[in-house]
């Protein structure tokens, strides 16, 4: 009986290639098609993968890519850290005290609903073109998903487990430590994962607008000078950053809260 299950599964899957094979083949095919089309077109404002790769080598050798990447990462890291440090305690506090919730939810809803991009000119006007303004912008892009997810996580704690804690005469502090925060943790991590995606957007747009440094600045600069092969290098770096960071968070979520995934898979 026990061995029959995997055998049957193998039979079901026989003749179908694994998802990894399909994914890799699809990516190779897409890149290949782009390469061929780009070479045939041979337009100065179009480019293709091998040209982008060559441009990347040049930008790395001159140190230009590292320089701008570092500037961007500093902005992203500071903005995200501030958002985590402010968003989690604020989300917890809003979930804990209804008075605070009602006092703050007009601001939270209004700011979250406002396209944060619309705030860029005013932030730049107030804070200048330097790192400070960009950190504040990334913070504004990141803080709401973290705050709202923390709030939701605290609110969606299993009432039955709260009753268990009460039945064992736990103090309120112990209930937060042992029940509410652990149960909110997967939500908080998902909030941070969403915040990273938004933070990358905020970072690039802020760099477009301020146009002094960073990957966003690289993109604008090479677009203005029609160097499309170089233009794609920061885009690819941003893509890798996005995929890498959110993938990292996803793995962290699975490690920290394995029970969530077991329940979902059942």
């Amino acid at each position: 009986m026990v061995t029959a299950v995997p055998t049957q599964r193998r039979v079901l899957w026989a003749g179908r290639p694994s998802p990894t094979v399909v994914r890799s083949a699809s990516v190779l095919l897409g890149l290949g098609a782009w390469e061929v089309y780009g070479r045939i077109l041979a337009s100065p404002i179009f480019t293709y993968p091998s040209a982008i790769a060559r441009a990347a080598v040049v930008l790395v050798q001159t140190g230009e890519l590292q320089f701008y990447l570092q500037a961007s990462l500093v902005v992203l890291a500071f903005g995200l850290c501030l958002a985590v440090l402010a968003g989690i305690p604020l989300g917890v506090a809003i979930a804990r005290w209804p008075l605070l919730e009602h006092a703050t939810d007009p601001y939270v809803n209004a700011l979250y609903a406002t396209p944060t991009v619309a705030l860029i000119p005013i932030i730049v006007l107030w804070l200048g073109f330097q790192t400070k303004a960009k950190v504040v912008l990334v913070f504004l892009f990141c803080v709401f998903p973290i705050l709202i997810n923390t709030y939701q996580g605290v609110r969606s704690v299993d009432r039955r487990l709260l009753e268990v804690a009460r039945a064992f005469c736990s103090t309120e502090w112990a209930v937060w430590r042992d029940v509410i925060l652990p149960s909110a943790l997967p939500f908080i991590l998902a909030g941070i994962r969403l915040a990273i995606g938004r933070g990358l957007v905020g970072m690039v747009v802020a760099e477009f607008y301020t146009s002094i440094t960073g990957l966003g600045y690289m993109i604008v600069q090479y677009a203005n000078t029609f160097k499309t092969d170089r233009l794609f290098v920061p885009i690819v770096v941003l893509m890798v950053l996005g995929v890498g960071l959110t993938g990292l968070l996803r793995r962290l979520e699975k490690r920290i809260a394995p029970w969530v995934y077991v329940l979902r898979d059942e």
Partner: protein
Amino acid sequence: MTTRIVADAVVKRFGDVFALGPCSLEVHANEFLCVIGPSGCGKTTLLRILAGLIAPDEGAVRLDGTEVRGPRREVAMVFQHFGLFPWKTVWDNVAYGLRAHGYPESVIRERVPRYIELMGLQGFERKYPYQLSGGMQQRVGIARALAVDPEVLLMDEPFGALDAQTREFMQEELVRIWRLQRKTVVFVTHSIDEAILLGDRIVVLSGRPGRVREDLPVDIPRPRAGERVRALPRFLELRRYVWELLRADAEGSR
């Protein structure tokens, strides 16, 4: 026989729903009392009131003569949904009550293994609840309750979510432990067989609002090993009697 718990004309309403009462009962020290009733009759509500988790709208509960106004350390509860913390290991779940009661680590390190062993959970200390079967999970729930050495154990259909065989095995385990440690047990169930197999006494509740309809001593000597007892004429007699009570009530409310 000393009286440990008294519920005195307890009434509970949830909005428009008249859930319970007036309901009065007494639980004697070291007694195994089973509470049975049709579904929705307020059995769980009664238990939560006895535990001090919710307050009755009228009436009062007294434990050893003092009124229950909130959860008490002398009382531990076992839940139908097990109530285990998914982010804690078996060890930490069993230790939960002890930590909540503020016992020092030295006591915890001595007691937790004892109750893990008592419930046959050795080797699973580092596992998480989702890695265990339902029966094993409820063993953790019972170990957690027993670990605080309560005088009163309140059990809310603890085996309701288990399959028939696991259930029978757990019933025997529970009686074995109860005979070792002589707690006062209030055991809510909707299974007539379970009530007769386990209880010194059965309180039969009526349909909503739950009131005590009958208070029956179970005069079958222990040990009551499942298969043998189920064939006894007295068992069948009691079973039919309780069944008639529950059925009459179900028909009456229709």
